[in-house]
């Protein structure tokens, strides 16, 4: 029977949303390949094992708890060695990870160690016979590739938010997985700089409020922040023009060379909609655009567009959103 191994990513002692999505994707894959079990590796600092029941809630049959002080930070080599060793000894059909900062590093490492084929940034998957088939957006989301992967095991990383984590409660069996130490020269994490607290990550937020040059000056981003606050748990993004000018950090850039996002709601403020930017957000479920130029390309993709001065409209919109949410 074909079991699937999942990397249940953690950070700061918490299981990340992308880990639950990976468990859901792994469940789908296990069902498609003959109904095997889903085994989740929960690696983190001592004490992380307490979080194991959450993975059971989302459908993991077995949680393999791997505790090590090194895993308080992203100990890439040791995590890769631990995952690869378990994948090998457990005879799994597939290893599933999230295509997050951690997963995009670990996936190729595990695949190379196992000499396994790998597909990354996957938005859907299925299986027939000995072949696993996945969908993968390529060419900066402008083309969808359907890839056939032969061989076993295979490594698959899933795009954040592409699979909705679904509860499928199980009393997961909990086992201990001894961490495998890194061999040879390794990368040392000297420090981790936490970003602004209180906002979700762009890849995980269901609402993103994003600003461009139309905001006219960096200080006007506080109007964008205020709208994000009004929505509650919204993330704040920016265009490449704005990050290149240093108004916002590079890590906030949404677009072909920055983050690619698909939230439920994307609000584009003073953004003209260059191809570079559209490539990063055109798969958002609902798009709102406010821009003074009614010919701006952003209006071609916006479900709801308002033509006008974003600086003038923003405070009005922020107040209206706040009122609407309080009315609930």
């Amino acid at each position, binding site marked *: 029977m074909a079991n699937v191994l999942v990397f249940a990513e953690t*950070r700061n002692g918490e299981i990340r949303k992308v880990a639950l999505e990976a468990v859901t994707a792994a469940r789908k894959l296990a069902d498609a390949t003959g109904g095997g079990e889903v085994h989740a590796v929960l690696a983190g600092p001592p004490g992380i094992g307490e979080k194991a029941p959450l993975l059971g809630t989302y459908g993991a049959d077995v949680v393999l708890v791997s505790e090590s002080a090194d895993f308080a*930070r992203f100990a*890439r*080599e040791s995590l*890769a060695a631990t995952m690869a060793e378990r994948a090998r000894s457990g005879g799994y059909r597939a290893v599933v990870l999230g295509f997050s*900062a951690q997963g995009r*590093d670990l*996936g*190729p*490492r595990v*695949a*190379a160690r196992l000499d*396994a*084929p790998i*597909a*990354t*940034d996957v938005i859907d998957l299925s299986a027939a016979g000995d072949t696993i088939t996945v969908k*993968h957006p390529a*060419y*900066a989301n*402008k*083309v*969808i*590739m*359907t*890839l*056939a*992967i*032969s061989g076993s095991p295979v490594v698959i990383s899933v795009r954040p938010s592409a699979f909705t984590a679904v509860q499928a409660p199980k009393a997961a069996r909990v086992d201990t997985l001894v961490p495998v130490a890194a061999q040879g*020269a*390794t990368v*040392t994490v*000297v420090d*981790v*700089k*936490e970003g602004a607290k209180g*906002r979700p*990550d762009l890849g*995980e937020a269901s609402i993103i409020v994003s600003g461009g040059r139309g905001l006219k000056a960096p200080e006007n981003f506080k109007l964008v922040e205020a709208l994000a606050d009004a929505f509650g748990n919204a993330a704040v993004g920016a265009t490449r023009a704005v990050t290149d000018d240093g108004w916002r950090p*590079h890590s906030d850039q949404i677009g*072909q*060379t*920055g983050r690619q996002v698909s939230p439920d709601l994307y609000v584009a403020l003073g953004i003209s909609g260059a*191809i*570079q930017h559209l490539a990063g957000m*055109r798969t958002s479920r609902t*798009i*709102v655009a406010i821009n003074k130029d009614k010919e701006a390309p*952003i*209006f071609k993709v*916006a*479900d*709801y*567009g*308002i*033509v*006008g001065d974003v600086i*003038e409209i923003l405070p*009005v919109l922020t107040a209206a959103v706040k009122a*609407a949410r309080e009315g609930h």
Partner: protein
Amino acid sequence: MKIAVCMKRTPDSESRFKIAASSTAIDETGLKFDMDDFAGYAVEAALQLNEKAGGGETVVYAVGPDNVQETLRKAMSMGVDRAVHLKADAVPVDGIAVAKALAAELKTGGYDLILFGKHAFDSSAGVVGTATAELLGLPCITAASQLSVDGGTGSARRELEGAAEILSFPLPAVVTIDEGVARPRYPSLKGIMAAKKKPMETKPAQLGSARVTIQKMELPPERPAGRIIGEGSAAVPELVKLLQNEAKVL
């Protein structure tokens, strides 16, 4: 320092794409191909590191058919010293197969640093660089947004979701480059002339077997045509109503 940069030739990312009749490739008619954006950042990073170190050698590698030589030549016109063309009919979509060819070639190169783009625009997979590092048994930073070298030690920054890692690593090492490290320079006329005389070595790529293959390529579903609901602040109540009742996101 002796630095290798592995690059890919990809179509201009601003193009409109059509699917070829085979439905397993894009229609290349009329497309402009050039050095991939992230490979460009990697070439620039390599050149700057060696300029700062006051010398060294920079070598570019590419897998692919003969037309990749044009892209390798461009890297040499930017200042890279020599190029190695690993000849293959096409670049497989299987990143491990490509990593095997590069690792086989790089393992005896004696490089202090091997750079890649964090991914290539066309396959958008981000596998080859990190997998090559593993095959070579070298430390690897995936998607560095800052990079510096001091003596035998490298330092890098890497973005996490909502945070950043500050990293240190011993050389030799592999680093895949994110945007932000370096904006590529334009080749000077002098550089273009000099590149014509720089050495280009060609040999067959020792690709691994391809276990990942493209079954189909398609364009994503079109978004419904955009709709302008009004002008100025007066349109805000209507927008909020639509977000509540139609989009149901509020």
